[in-house]
């Protein structure tokens, strides 16, 4: 049976660009939340987000011209480039037809939509810049990775909102185990945008200044952005080039609530966990860490926590949310969760849930790894992702046996 190795990590995040910086920030429990600068937040009651200020596309991209690609595509390509460098993969040794790009997203080139909308408001539909319109299609996120790295395999953008990069990792896993691929760059990307900030605020789901998942007084999400891409290979390919295998993708599970456009569904989420365990041949008591979807809204964390208690019993493994540090990076969120899970496995620590002060009495037994990272031997990690549309996706990662 083909096994799937994680051999490189490419985080472009508000707490660090590149695996060493990102890992250090997770260990330190650093916050990447700051006052919004990518749009004018004047008039919004809440004005914080997890923007990536330090990303310099010119420094990270070798082939793409940043002038002709939107910010989310640049995040995806930059993160993929970093993952290849982290994995020390010499692309000239790879069969390009067996190297694929699979990228998840929630809102694609949202900042391009917003720039065009400002042009429509200012001067009518005819005033839109054709160059910007050509940056609009969301398929460009995966295409940017293929173009930047010279990959000839599939170039697929999965637009399943906030679980999209788990969908991407899952599809990448399938490409590898079914013999279609030697190498897949998989993850997700999204950009902070005004309309999502407004929409989450009006849903009553936006926190004021900081995000405090699993805290009794949690008040919601903060929007975030970035690119998170993992380099996946078959074990055979990784071993042939003597690559360092950081972790193994064990399998994944997907399902759909088919119930409500935005409210999470406990029964369905629990079922998705069981499906992921079954597909990965993992038993609940073998799971050492759950990298939570953990958005910090009262509803998500309650539903996710209850589903965990239902599946794992009264003493589940530690459950932390890195969204407390980087905000909700939407289509990149599960990619960052997967990178954090791989680092947990490879480096032996649990990323903390920062901003935590008081246990939620409705979630007895949930250990959110409060505020401080903790040393731990993580053999199996569960990376949760849920989304609008009821698109649940969970990826299981393991230490190399």
């Amino acid at each position, binding site marked *: 049976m083909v096994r799937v190795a994680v051999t490189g990590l490419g985080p472009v995040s508000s707490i660090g660009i590149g695996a060493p910086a990102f890992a250090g920030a997770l260990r330190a429990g650093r916050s990447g939340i700051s006052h919004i600068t990518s749009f004018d937040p004047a*008039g919004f009651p809440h004005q914080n987000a997890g923007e990536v200020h330090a990303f310099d596309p010119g420094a990270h991209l070798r082939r793409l011209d940043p002038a002709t690609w939107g910010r989310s595509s640049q995040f995806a390509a930059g993160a993929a480039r970093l993952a290849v460098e982290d994995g020390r993969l010499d692309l000239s040794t790879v069969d390009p037809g067996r190297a694929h790009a699979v990228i998840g997203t929630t809102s694609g080139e949202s900042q391009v939509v917003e720039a065009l909308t400002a042009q429509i408001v200012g001067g009518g539909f005819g005033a839109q810049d054709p160059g910007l319109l050509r940056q609009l299609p969301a398929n460009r996120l995966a295409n940017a990775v293929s173009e930047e790295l*010279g990959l000839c395999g599939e170039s697929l953008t999965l637009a399943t909102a906030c679980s999209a990069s788990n969908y991407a990792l899952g599809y990448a896993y399938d490409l590898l185990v079914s013999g279609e691929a030697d190498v897949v760059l998989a993850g997700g990307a999204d950009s902070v945008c005004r309309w999502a900030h407004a929409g989450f605020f*009006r849903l009553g789901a936006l926190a004021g200044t900081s995000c405090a998942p699993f805290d009794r007084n949690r008040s919601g999400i903060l929007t975030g952005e970035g690119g998170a891409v993992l380099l996946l290979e078959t074990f055979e390919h990784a071993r042939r080039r003597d690559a360092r295998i950081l972790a193994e993708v064990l399998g994944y599970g997907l399902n759909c609530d088919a119930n409500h*456009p935005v409210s999470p569904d406990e029964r369905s989420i629990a079922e998705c966990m069981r499906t992921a365990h079954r597909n990965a041949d993992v038993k609940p008591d073998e799971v050492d860490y759950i990298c939570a979807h953990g958005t910090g809204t009262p509803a998500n964390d309650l539903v996710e926590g209850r589903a965990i208690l239902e599946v794992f019993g009264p003493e589940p493994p530690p459950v932390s949310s890195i969204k407390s540090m980087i905000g909700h990076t939407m289509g990149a969120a599960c990619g960052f969760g997967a990178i954090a899970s791989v680092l947990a496995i490879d480096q032996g620590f649990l990323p903390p849930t920062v901003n935590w002060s008081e246990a939620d009495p409705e979630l007895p037994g949930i250990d959110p790894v409060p505020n401080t990272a903790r040393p731990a031997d993580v053999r199996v990690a569960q990376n949760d992702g849920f989304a609008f549309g009821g698109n649940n996706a969970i990826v299981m990662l393991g230490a190399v046996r």
Partner: protein
Amino acid sequence: MSGVAITGWSAITSAGVGAEPLAVGVPVPQDVRAMFDDPLPVPSARALPGFDVRTLLGRKGTSSFDRATALAVVCCREALRSSPVDLDAGPHARTGVVLGTSLGSFKSTSDYSRETLVQERPYLVNPVLFPNTVMNGAAGQVAIRFGLRGVNATIAGGPLAFLNAVRYARNVLDRGYADTMVAGAVEEFTPHRAWAVQLAGEPDTAPAGEAAAFFVLSRTADGGSGARILSVATGYGPGGTMPAGTALTSCVGRALRQAGADSSAVGAVVTGSAHPDDDREYGPAVRALGHHPEHVPARRLLGDCGAATGAAALAVVLAGPALPAARPLVLLTGRGADGAVGAAIVEGSGDERPDRG
């Protein structure tokens, strides 16, 4: 048996809702001037101005639908009704959806963004409409409407979206994650899309149209339409026009091999082109085939239906007369503005269809 069976399908084009209008006529341009308050760059388009989701589905649960969502939900209902799936027997844990798009609804997202600019306070947006700004809104509503709890995916593929969706569905079925997948694509006609095509399309482009087409796919053909998607292959040609053409030739070759088909059995090539003499897809396809079958340029038939062009073109082919027995296969190709390419081999139903066992 190679490929997946099409056990039901439906389409919405400017010809109307369902398969029947396509069997009796081709989609023609309609007068679209009364569709929107906003100005349009064209007075007519291959759109369906009379499409009204409330008439077709009722008021309940549809008031928040944008046009793309409404087209997708109605089209999936018609496709499922024509298939062995019993819609009254839900929920369906092993039936899923994969929906192709370009960026969801450009109108829904842009209108939402607009509200943040023109309202007295920037947060005075309508929370009920927020899910429409997310690209998976339509597929989520399809799942809710029909109780489809299996794998639910949305793929942003633009001109490749339908081939991407079929490829994704095929993987889900091959891996055993679901038994039935409703795969297709949707694109709405709106001022936003009409202007985008007008301003940023290629010089020889077709004006924007709208369409949805969905195909109920399964590994087994019980109660099927007789049509099958024998194979699908997608790829990317980095570095410009030449590599993309080469990548498309390679995809067609792979699709033929996967299908176990002789290239001489291909009787028609359905491309995303707007003109029969546009060689961007047909040329690379012919290089793989070694002969010149009939070229069916889909955007000429349907207008620029973005992600749905290929899906609707397949519907037109399936609704039309069967190809001759000696050349029963259809090659469907796609090519994006960057380097994305793809190809599928489809075997139609019909009396002249050879028995492939």
